[in-house]
């Protein structure tokens, strides 16, 4: 992080009509500069204990979020709660397979989320394509398109496994390891290239912020 940064060229937003290009951000994401010592540790503690979940169930996995949100598993007691918009959320749960059409929304939602942001990926489909390994419409590895902090095995993972995943995420954040957002910024060009390879009709800004 301390290394000298060259200022990247502004994003072209070529997917948009020329008159709309100016309406959106043309700067690439930048890495987060951590605060010093104890203050950053305090921030990390605060972040880890208030995980705000984006209410976007992208695949089968969304079905287990309902029990989590309700009385039996009650995730609120762990500081986790769903939010309706990416702008208020810090955790994105990728609930399994992602069709190309959904991937586009995933990218957009992810980029719109406030930093620091974290991604939890559920099930086989996010790791290596799962049962849709030969489908023409689902991606195989979500980590090609957005950075992922924690993977949870299963199809579907039980709510308890999700909770365990959140605990792991908390642990990672507290130890200052939730680097996904910075990774995204660092490898922005790589992620973009991957995204544009599969999202054929790219009609949104290059960076949706």
């Amino acid at each position: 992080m301390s290394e000298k940064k060259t200022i990247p060229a502004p994003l072209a937003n070529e997917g948009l009509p020329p008159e709309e290009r100016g309406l959106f951000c043309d700067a690439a994401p930048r890495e987060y500069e951590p605060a010093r010592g104890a203050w950053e540790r305090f921030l990390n503690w605060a972040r880890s204990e208030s995980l705000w979940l984006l209410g976007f169930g992208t695949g089968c996995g969304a079905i287990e979020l309902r029990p989590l949100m309700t009385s039996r598993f009650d995730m609120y007691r762990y500081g986790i709660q769903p939010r309706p918009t990416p702008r208020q959320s810090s955790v994105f749960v990728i609930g399994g397979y992602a069709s190309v059409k959904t991937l586009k929304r995933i990218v957009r939602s992810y980029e719109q989320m406030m930093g620091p942001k974290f991604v939890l990926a559920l099930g086989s489909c996010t790791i290596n394509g799962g049962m849709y390994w030969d489908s023409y419409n689902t991606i195989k590895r979500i980590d090609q398109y957005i950075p992922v902090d924690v993977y949870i095995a299963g199809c579907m993972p039980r709510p308890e496994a999700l909770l365990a995943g959140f605990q792991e995420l908390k642990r990672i954040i507290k130890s200052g390891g939730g680097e996904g957002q910075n990774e995204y910024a660092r490898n922005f060009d790589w992620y973009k290239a991957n995204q544009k390879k599969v999202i054929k009709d790219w009609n949104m800004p290059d960076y949706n912020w």
Partner: protein
Amino acid sequence: MNELAKELAGRYGARGWHDIRKDLASVEVDAIRIRDVMAYLRDEAGYGHLSFMTAIDNIERGAFTLSYALRDHDARRGLIVHADVDRAEPTVDSIHLLWGQAWTYQREMREWFGIDFPGSPRVDEEFVLEGWEGPPMMRRDFDSLAYSDATYAERPGRVTHDPASHMREKLYPEAAQ
């Protein structure tokens, strides 16, 4: 052969009535008569409910076989109407005026098989896909795995061994030549 089969044969040249089970039958008509047949079945024969519409790619004989599944709720029986269309130029009359949901199926078949239904609402709009550049993917000659392999990155490191050839390698390599 029952009354309806005779009637359909007489009016629309329907053929090949086949009782799949006691409450389900299939029959074949020419694609050009499909709208008339469906209208007749809906209005005169009691088959008021359209369960679904779909197509089968019979690539071997160069045809798409359309399947229209109807149900007569009162008589508690179903009927699947088949019609072949030329695979090279698949165009069929739209029945969206007969049933309120038919246009969606037609839009689906347009996208998935490339079968055209002129006049059907939004028939040329994308349905489930977005930015699809390949051929209609439900056609038999579209290879889903090959497309997936070429398009979506896979996690490396997978390798498997065929037991028989592995054993040959280990136990009697001399036979491998």
